[in-house]
């Protein structure tokens, strides 16, 4: 079969073939050089990035106790689901969301989170779902062989043991936002972490958080952790595990039992605030803003629907009305007017005036609550006669009034720093001048009875009345008694902080106190109806107009109802301030609430039938404390 072949012709073409073969293989070798030698180190690092995974170990967040050692905020065991985005492809994610029966809203959030992390943090395990329930956990364990990338991790979920109790003081937590992370220069936060958003959870975030630990592990392409020795050897000299450091413990100044009773007392009305201060130290024994929220709901698993409901609630549950809202003080402010008048000798306690139920000033008529007839300063305070204070105001002047108001801490934040505390406002002539409104004496008249442009917060009023009770020492309210290590050693005790000692003439103090006692004890006093048999209480009612009546276009709102008090009169222990929003007559609304709080403080068992016997309010810690 041999056919002659044109040998020389073919030979040349074989030579071309050889050249071609060598050329192509040369190109391949060039490519290998480029990948393995030129870029080898970079690819080696990228390959290590494939199998090295850093898993964060959450630090135990510090617990929060009340002054008696009762646990307020702790943790409960729960399970979160984590996965590294790299191992979560679309079908797996769909399957996961379907099997766990996540509602569409949560499912969307999970998808967003995975999509966001795919680009940048592909290897870091990402928190997908927080706090799954028992059924979901069982389901996930069953699906483990098919969905190996999803890990249920036992974590400690923040738990507010008493639900909504002291909600605004304790606060709540929520997940760090992209914005938080962007501003987090010190690297304090990880994506998916919860941070304190409100209350002491926010204020003491740095103390409570602790330091996140990290564990370095080797994973395979399916996200499974490999324990074999050769796999472990890949970790090299890097530390395998950096243990987390638990956060510190907060011991608050509040008393849980008192706090509960304060909240129960407030619940009679739609919305309000109450605060109880320890007169001799400025410690906050209870602070309540009603309506409140359930911190367990807000922490981590609030749905947008629930968020809307909270935001739309007319009672403004997310607002801390003790620290965060300005109110006209109404007649509780009259003590300041009285002090301003008598301290500088502008008026004396015994001057009389006649109240006809109104006071004509310029072309306006300023009204009084009653026709009080002939009154002196004592009766004007006890019976809350506006006319007397109008007359006094004309002589005292706005700036003197402002000076005394500021002296007692009104119109400025108390320095607690909680929940974006607002400062209230005390007007001066200069302020009116700045605003371009010609000053009129009528402004002073309104200011003298705590209206006009005077705005205060309940905590300011409480600090003022505590100062009247203790003889002029204005304390910065204190909410944290001490910070402890996780082991229970005191790390930082907080001493009462005196803002200023106010020197009042003994006579001023004595007669002012007598007037405040008369508010409750005198049959004609505005608080008389709510007096407590066997316990002397000094106090002052305030009924603050919210919107001036007669503005036809605006819906007329009920007055805010105030009562500020301290007790017992002989040796004051607590100052109590109650504000009922749009409650109406103080004597009928705020005063009974305040009195119930006072009564519950001094006779806990009587005030709260059915509740267990509370430890004495100043008892040391121990009983309720977890080991």
């Amino acid at each position, binding site marked *: 079969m041999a056919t002659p072949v044109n040998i020389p012709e073919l030979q040349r*073409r074989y030579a071309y073939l050889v050249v071609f073969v060598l050329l192509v293989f040369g190109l391949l070798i060039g490519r290998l050089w480029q990948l393995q030698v030129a870029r080898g180190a970079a690819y080696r690092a*990228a390959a290590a990035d494939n199998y090295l995974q850093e898993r964060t170990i959450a630090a135990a967040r510090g617990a929060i106790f009340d002054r008696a050692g009762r646990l307020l905020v702790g943790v409960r065991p729960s399970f979160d689901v984590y996965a590294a985005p790299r191992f979560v492809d679309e079908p797996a994610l769909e399957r996961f969301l379907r099997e766990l029966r996540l509602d569409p809203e949560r499912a969307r959030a999970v998808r967003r989170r995975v999509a966001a992390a795919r680009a940048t943090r592909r290897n870091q395990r990402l928190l997908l779902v927080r706090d799954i329930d028992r059924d979901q956990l069982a389901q996930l364990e069953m699906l483990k062989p098919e969905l190996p990338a999803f890990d249920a991790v036992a974590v400690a979920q923040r738990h507010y043991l008493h639900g909504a109790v002291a909600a605004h003081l304790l606060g709540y937590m929520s997940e760090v936002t992209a914005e938080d992370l962007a501003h987090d220069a010190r690297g304090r936060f990880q994506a998916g972490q919860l941070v304190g958003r409100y209350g002491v959870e926010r204020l003491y975030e740095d103390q409570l958080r602790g330091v996140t630990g990290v564990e370095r592990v080797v994973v395979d392409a399916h996200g499974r952790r490999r324990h074999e020795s050769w*796999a472990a050897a890949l970790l090299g000299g890097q530390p395998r595990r950096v243990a987390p450091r638990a956060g510190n413990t907060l011991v608050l100044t509040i008393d849980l039992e008192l706090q509960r009773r304060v909240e129960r007392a407030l619940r009679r009305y739609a919305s309000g605030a109450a605060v109880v201060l320890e007169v001799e130290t400025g410690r906050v024994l209870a602070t309540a803003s009603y309506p409140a929220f359930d911190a367990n709901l807000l922490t981590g698993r609030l749905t947008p629907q629930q968020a809307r409901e909270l935001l739309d609630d007319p009672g403004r549950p997310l607002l801390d009305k003790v620290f965060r809202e300005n109110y006209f003080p109404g007649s509780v402010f009259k003590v300041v007017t009285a002090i301003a008048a008598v301290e500088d000798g502008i008026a004396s306690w015994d001057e009389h005036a006649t109240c006809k139920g109104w006071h004509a000033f310029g072309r306006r008529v300023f009204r009084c609550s009653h026709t009080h007839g002939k009154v002196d300063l004592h009766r004007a305070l006890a019976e809350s006669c506006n006319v007397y204070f109008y007359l006094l105001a004309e002589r005292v002047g706005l700036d003197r009034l402002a000076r005394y108001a500021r002296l007692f801490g009104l119109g400025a934040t108390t320095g607690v720093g909680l929940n974006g505390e607002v400062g209230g406002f005390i007007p001066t002539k200069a302020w009116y001048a700045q605003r371009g409104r010609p000053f009129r004496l009528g402004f002073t008249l309104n200011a003298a009875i705590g209206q006009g442009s005077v705005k205060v917060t309940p905590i300011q009023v409480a600090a003022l009345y505590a100062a009247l009770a203790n003889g002029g020492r204005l304390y910065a309210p204190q909410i944290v008694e001490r910070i402890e290590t996780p082991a229970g050693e005191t790390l930082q005790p907080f001493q009462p902080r005196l803002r200023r000692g106010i020197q009042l003439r003994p006579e001023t103090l004595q007669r002012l106190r007598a007037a405040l006692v008369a508010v409750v004890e005198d049959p004609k006093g505005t608080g008389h109806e709510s007096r407590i048999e066997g316990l002397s209480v000094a106090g002052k009612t305030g009924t603050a107009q919210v919107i001036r009546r007669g503005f036809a276009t605006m819906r007329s709102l009920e007055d805010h109802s105030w009562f500020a008090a301290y007790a017992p009169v002989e040796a004051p222990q607590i100052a109590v301030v109650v504000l009922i929003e749009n409650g109406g007559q103080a004597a009928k609304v705020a005063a009974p609430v305040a009195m119930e709080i006072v009564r519950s403080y001094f006779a806990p068992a009587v005030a709260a039938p059915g509740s267990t016997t509370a430890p004495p309010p100043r008892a040391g810690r121990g009983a309720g404390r977890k080991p």
Partner: protein
Amino acid sequence: MTGWGKLRAHFDWPLGICMVVLVTVGLANLYSATATTTLTLVRQQLGWLVLGFGVFLVTATLDYRLFYRLAYPLYGAGLLALLLVLLVGKSVNASQRWLELFGFAIQPSEPMKVLLILALAKYLHDDPTVEERTLRHVLIPFLLVLAPVVLVLRQPDLGTALLILLLFVSIMLLTKLRLRAVLTLLLAVIAASPLIWSYVLRDYQKRRIYTFLDPSSDPGGSGWHSRQSILAVGSGGWTGKGYLQGTQNRLHFLPERWTDFPFAVWAEEWGFLGSVALLAVYVVLVLLAVRLASQARDRFGAVLCVGVAALLFWHTVFSIGMVTGTIPVVGVTLPFVSYGGSSMMTTMCATGLLMNASVRRSSY
């Protein structure tokens, strides 16, 4: 002399050594690629090897003229098998490439390459036209090639179809074509490419091409394999991570480690030096085949050797090119090294033909 005696007398040692080296590398590499999961594949591959060596011995010792005479019937049988694949074949990953036979799954498109080489060799041998072929002379060989290409594309298996076409081009380039014919063919290919894009290529194939052009377009999907393979090769560095130490391999980041990406396993564990050494063996093998072609006494032998050289060359280039991200991802096996019976049989058969030609060259 019998075929066996001739083989013993004139055994082509360089060829044999290349084969043994590659087979050994392949087994060691397969062991590394599968050690973390199962040894079944290594055992199976050993079986294929024994069988393959048998095929090698048979093709190396059988009378050369037998292949010449049976070229067309064998080619016809191959076409029939490809047709059967489409009718009763087994589907794996949405493409139908396998035939169940005696409990074995065989991939007829693999042996078809050798059968096609034989058919082309016979046709060119018989064609009285010596040189200066025009388009008319190319028509019948082209039809010979077109039939398997169309059948393979229906599976669909783009890689194999492309390989068959390249075999054809390689062989035809050896026979002198008129320049005009070459240019016309070139124009035809360019003109046909939009049609191929629209009617022949499947969506996943287009996606692979897009991903190859812009790997960042789909880092999670079809770019993933390519990316992981490049990582494996690149992270090998100069000397590699060491045998059984490749992290991309052992932690399963590499896809298709034993069929389409075995070179990545090798490159990761043996580095640039090991990769070049392995490449060198392939170069020697291909050049041995080219030299055998040049020493052939007849056109049948010459075309056969060039065809086998092209087969080994393109398989190696495609496989390594894909693994190094030099060309888009197409599933092509690495001769002697990839796991798989059909591939091993085909390669052994092709090498057997080379050995046959080598022995015959010195025996006349």
